């Protein structure tokens, strides 16, 4: 045991060195210019945790020398603490790519303001990385939960209540219309924050008979195998697969539903364009439902909340196509998928749609009237190459909101793209790609103008209050 205690002491010492290296790295990157102040807050958090991990490891020396644990138990215990170091590397990875040279600068202030409007105690870090991955997730809650009651808990005071880490693929950082999918991800945060699952999940009825038949079928099939999986393991497998799948799918669908309420048709347009490119329409997994089911929910909600028959004919044709496609029955690729598909029927989709209303206030919701007025008032400005960042008479104009700009941009992209392309200088509109790039540029410029206008109004208001 003495030799093992010495090895444990060495393990602790080298882990402390690794933690120190993380702290040193923070020193190297903290002077970069970041597009959002939250990047530096996260760096300060990493630095603080890295220092405290050294103390946490130091305290483990007493456990190691107490001769209480077996070598294997001690190894596992120490290894767990050491696993916090790769977590810090992940956090540094979140910050990487969020400096002004990499992240889409025009988008960030607007997105930050939007996140504040939905969740006032939130902050965002936006990074652009060379990987095909859109994400936005709150990491503050997860870290606070992890460190609660430990030596590392005080570090969490450096974090805001919600810290959304947004990742945008570097090659698509300018594809602003596709960034509408971030509304789905904001949906995840609201799904958790508003505890949408609590009221909704018990209302979803999973067929007891179907679940039992599935287990029975698997058991009988195993019995015919030369080395059958024991019944207990099968039961565990079925429980994990069914419970995990339905919970996961309902969460994803609910996030889509919340996203539709926040961003309206723009989320649907962004989602179908992105999903269509990268996923088979009926492909699903334990955590994500098939695209066809997601489209079905979004189309149902659009039909419920929007006057689709008043939309531009191109848009009507587009949504009708998706409506037809989503009506085709989905055949699960596994028995578990099939059970989830049969459980999440039309009634459950409506339940999800209704429950999403508890997470989004009417003031935060994008509406049919807004979409119609954005299509009528903002979209034509794009056709004249005017970024619609503010609207109204000269001197009394007001900033245009994020969701309106994105929806108007999509309207042009789907309904008037050829007209937009023809309106450009022949050199700019020579290819479809270059014309699309110009449209994205105008949308980004509109966001920038909107943010400048909003900031200016805020500054004026503060200055006026100061005088009063």
């Amino acid at each position, binding site marked *: 045991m003495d030799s093992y205690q010495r090895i444990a002491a060495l393990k602790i010492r080298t882990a402390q060195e690794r933690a120190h290296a993380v702290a040193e790295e923070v020193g190297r990157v903290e002077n970069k210019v970041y597009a959002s102040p939250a990047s530096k807050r996260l760096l300060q958090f990493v630095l603080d945790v890295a220092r405290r991990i050294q103390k946490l490891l130091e305290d483990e020396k007493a456990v190691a020398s107490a001769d209480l644990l077996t070598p294997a138990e001690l190894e596992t215990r120490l290894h767990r603490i050491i696993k916090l170091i790769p977590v810090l590397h992940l956090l540094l990875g979140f910050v990487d790519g969020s400096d002004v040279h990499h992240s889409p600068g025009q988008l960030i202030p607007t997105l930050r303001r939007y996140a504040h409007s939905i969740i006032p105690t939130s902050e965002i870090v936006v990074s652009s990385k060379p990987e095909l*991955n859109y994400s936005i997730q709150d990491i503050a809650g997860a870290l606070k939960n992890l460190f609660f009651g430990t030596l590392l808990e005080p570090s969490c005071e450096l974090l805001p209540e919600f810290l959304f880490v947004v990742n945008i693929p570097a090659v698509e950082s300018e594809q602003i219309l596709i960034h509408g999918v971030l509304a789905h991800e904001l949906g995840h945060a609201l799904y958790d924050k508003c505890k949408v699952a609590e009221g909704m999940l018990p209302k979803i009825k999973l067929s007891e008979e179907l679940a039992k038949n599935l287990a029975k079928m698997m058991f009988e099939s195993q019995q015919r195998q030369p080395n059958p999986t024991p*019944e207990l393991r099968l039961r565990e497998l079925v429980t994990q697969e069914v419970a995990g799948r339905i*919970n996961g799918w309902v969460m994803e669908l609910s996030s889509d539903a919340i996203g539709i309420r926040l961003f309206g048709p723009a989320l649907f347009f962004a989602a179908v364009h992105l999903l269509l490119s990268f996923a088979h329409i009926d492909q699903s997994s334990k955590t994500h439902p098939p695209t066809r089911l997601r489209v079905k929910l979004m189309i149902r909600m659009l039909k419920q909340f929007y006057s689709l028959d008043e939309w531009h004919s191109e848009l009507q044709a587009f949504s009708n196509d998706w409506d037809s496609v989503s009506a085709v029955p989905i055949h699960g690729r596994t028995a578990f998928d099939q059970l989830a598909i049969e459980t999440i029927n039309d009634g459950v989709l409506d339940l999800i749609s209704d429950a999403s209303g508890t997470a989004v206030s009417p003031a935060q919701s994008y509406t049919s009237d807004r979409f119609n007025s954005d299509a009528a008032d903002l979209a034509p400005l794009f056709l004249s190459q005017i970024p619609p960042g503010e609207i109204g008479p000269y001197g009394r104009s007001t900033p245009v909101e994020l969701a309106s700009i994105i929806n108007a941009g999509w309207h042009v992209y789907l309904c008037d793209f050829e007209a937009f392309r023809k309106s450009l200088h022949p050199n700019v509109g020579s290819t479809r790609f270059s014309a699309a790039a110009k449209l994205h540029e105008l949308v980004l410029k509109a966001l920038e103008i909107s943010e400048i206008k909003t900031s200016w109004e805020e500054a004026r208001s503060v200055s006026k209050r100061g005088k009063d």
Partner: protein
Amino acid sequence: MHSEHRFSDLTESLKNGFLVDDIVLALARAEKGESLGEKERRLLGKAVSILELAEAGYRWLDKPELTTETKSFATFFGRAVNALPSVYASEVFLERVSDLKATAAQLSSGESTPARGKIQLLRTFFYNTAQSELDRTEQLLAGEGSADVLKWTVTNE
């Protein structure tokens, strides 16, 4: 291409692991005959809860209702099955979990001390759970769950 886990899966796995490691340490003290303080007894109360979740997870399929706890039931059932590698039959599993729960409850209440062999079984169960949770953490860190992922692009499991 991308995994489908979120950062919270990783932190949840680590949190569960820290708890189970502390339970193992408390059981090591108990097995050595040390008197357990308030902190250790509270930890053993949590051990009882974990075993109850595992039992609820086992029974979930008999009446599959969805709640916010469903995922925890399934998770702890899975961890318990992995922690009892030589148990294959349902009856034995339930009996074993029930025995373990009784030992943990006895230690948690502090009213009497279970036999050393019983404490040893409980300690082995939680050590196996700790090891299984560490494997899960490593999987999540190794890319199956690289934390900054979100899956708009659904991929094969």
